[in-house]
């Protein structure tokens, strides 16, 4: 059962199975297990579903089914949807700030700042969606080459443990903006802000399968994503050991990885271009001129 927190205490005290977010639906974890989430003092805050490799498999199937339509949608539409996510998060800013404060033990001001920055970041990457343009290059023949950034496809994200809301938003927003479908593993110690996001995505016109969230043991899950042949890229934030496992597991299928060990200050403005570059690959079209 979900422990009483200021966020949840209005709800009647009945058993609720904590869910994962797969294919636009709240899905029961395959194994039926949960993990208990505690605050920094060890007090029980709630539970999340314990995702396993089958849940990831289902999430990747859902992402694969969604990515075709999402990557072909106009950048303008993707921008509108990200703005809508930002607006809906903004409407629930107090609730999310409380959640972040209770989970991480941050001060009220810091928790509020994390939520505000998350909303800003959604707007920022939403605005980027139709501005991450390609280029026309000079080439050493008579002609030009057009370089077009395109979505990579299905991307796995092991989100940072710190800044549980902002870290997740900062990593998945650039991927969504550029037309990828995401399977994300939220912060392992503090996943409750991510599970609160399910209803935000549900009510923001995000097509089913574009965002999938699987809570659980981050490094083990990230390694499964890295080994999965149908995932085109994996982004990882966490420990050096977790990073090494992801890079090693990805070697068998030559997928792209973008891995980071150690904590990051997510409140600082990120190098958005670096994220967008990693979220896309470039298609070059050579256009030779005749006489």
């Amino acid at each position, binding site marked *: 059962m979900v422990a009483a927190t200021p966020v949840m205490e209005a709800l009647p005290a009945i058993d609720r199975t904590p869910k994962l977010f797969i294919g636009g639906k709240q899905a029961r974890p395959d194994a039926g297990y949960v993990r208990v989430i505690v605050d920094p003092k060890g007090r029980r805050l709630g539970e999340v579903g314990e995702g396993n490799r089958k849940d990831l498999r289902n999430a990747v199937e859902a992402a694969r089914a969604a990515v075709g339509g999402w990557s072909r949608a106009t950048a303008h539409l993707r921008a509108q949807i990200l703005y809508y996510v930002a607006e809906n998060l903004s409407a629930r800013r107090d609730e999310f700030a409380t959640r972040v404060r209770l989970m991480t033990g941050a001060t009220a001001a810091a928790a509020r700042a994390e939520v505000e920055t998350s909303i800003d970041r959604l707007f920022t990457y939403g605005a980027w969606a139709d501005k991450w343009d390609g280029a026309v290059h000079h080439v050493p023949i008579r002609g030009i080459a057009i370089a077009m950034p395109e979505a990579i496809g299905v991307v796995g994200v092991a989100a940072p443990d710190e800044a549980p809301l902002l870290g997740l938003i900062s990593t998945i927003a650039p991927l969504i903006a550029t037309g990828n479908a995401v399977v994300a593993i939220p912060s392992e110690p503090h996943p409750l802000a991510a599970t609160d996001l399910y209803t935000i995505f549900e009510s923001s016109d995000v097509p089913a399968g574009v965002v999938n969230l699987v809570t659980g043991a981050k490094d083990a899950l990230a390694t499964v994503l890295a*080994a*999965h*042949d*149908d995932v085109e890229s994996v982004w990882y934030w966490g420990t050096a050991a977790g990073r090494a496992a992801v890079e090693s597991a990805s070697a*068998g*299928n030559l997928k792209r990885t973008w891995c980071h060990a150690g904590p990051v200050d997510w409140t600082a403005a990120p190098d958005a271009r670096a994220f967008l570059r990693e979220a896309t690959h470039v298609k070059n079209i050579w256009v030779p001129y005749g006489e």
Partner: protein
Amino acid sequence: MSAGPLPRNPGQPLDLEVVRGIRVNRSAAERRAATIPTRRTVKKQWQAAWLLKGIALMDLTTLSGDDTAGNVRRLCAKARHPLRDDLTRALGVESLGLTVGAVCVYHRWVETAVRALEGSGIPVAAVSTGFPAGLSPFAQRLEEIRASVAAGAREIDIVITRAHVLTGDWTALYDEVRAFREACGDAHLKAILATGELATLTNVARASWVAMQAGADFIKTSTGKEGVNATLPVSLVMVRQIRAYHAATGVHVGYKPAGGIRTAKQALDYLLLMKEELGGRWLHPDLFRFGASALLTDIERQLEHFVTGRYAAAHRHPMP
């Protein structure tokens, strides 16, 4: 395949009293069917073996308006060689010479498919009676069957006139299927009942029985073009009729679910249903087929997962 050849279904005179006596309890059928996918299914090497079985029982199908000789030939190449060589070797099944059960195409592509499958022993099945609605003139439907047989089709998938079922005109249905069966000659006849358009399970059961009495070698659920295609409750009803027909006459009639079977897991559900309801003899290609196109790729992916331990991608397998 150790099973010996079976005599064809010669058919029987239509017995309207039996047909009208057939009733199906929909709730009971749905309840029984619902238990099948919820059981612990076969796992590990047994699962791999069942999936290989699934490939051998597949009518690899393309029935699209945009079919061309090129994609029919590609489908035939896939039918001869359904599994990547590295997987065949890793599974140790090179000696099986695994192929699919048949290739199923429109009449227009029968010759193309027959030529592409030459020497492989894989039969070509044709959908040849004004598929999918089956509403073209009767003489033309018979002519289409004869033309398909002449072009080399060894199996003919016919569609029944749904109106005969919906109006309870069992004699008309019997005569229609009987005439199709005669037009088929030595080619095997699979009767497509289009169960998604028959409204009730009782209609499905009665139509199954009439088709079998008229001499169908197989009864098949759907064209794949109806709103609802193969489902487990419908399958349960149809295989129970096959069982009853076998009990009454000693004749084996085959079953072919088609349409909407896309995943390896679904395929295993159907195989389990056949094994439980009719026994192992109905798991041979002469008595059971899947009508499918996307299913093969999913089976390949699951077999690759079994071999490598990693989840597989569809684009790493040759297209069917």
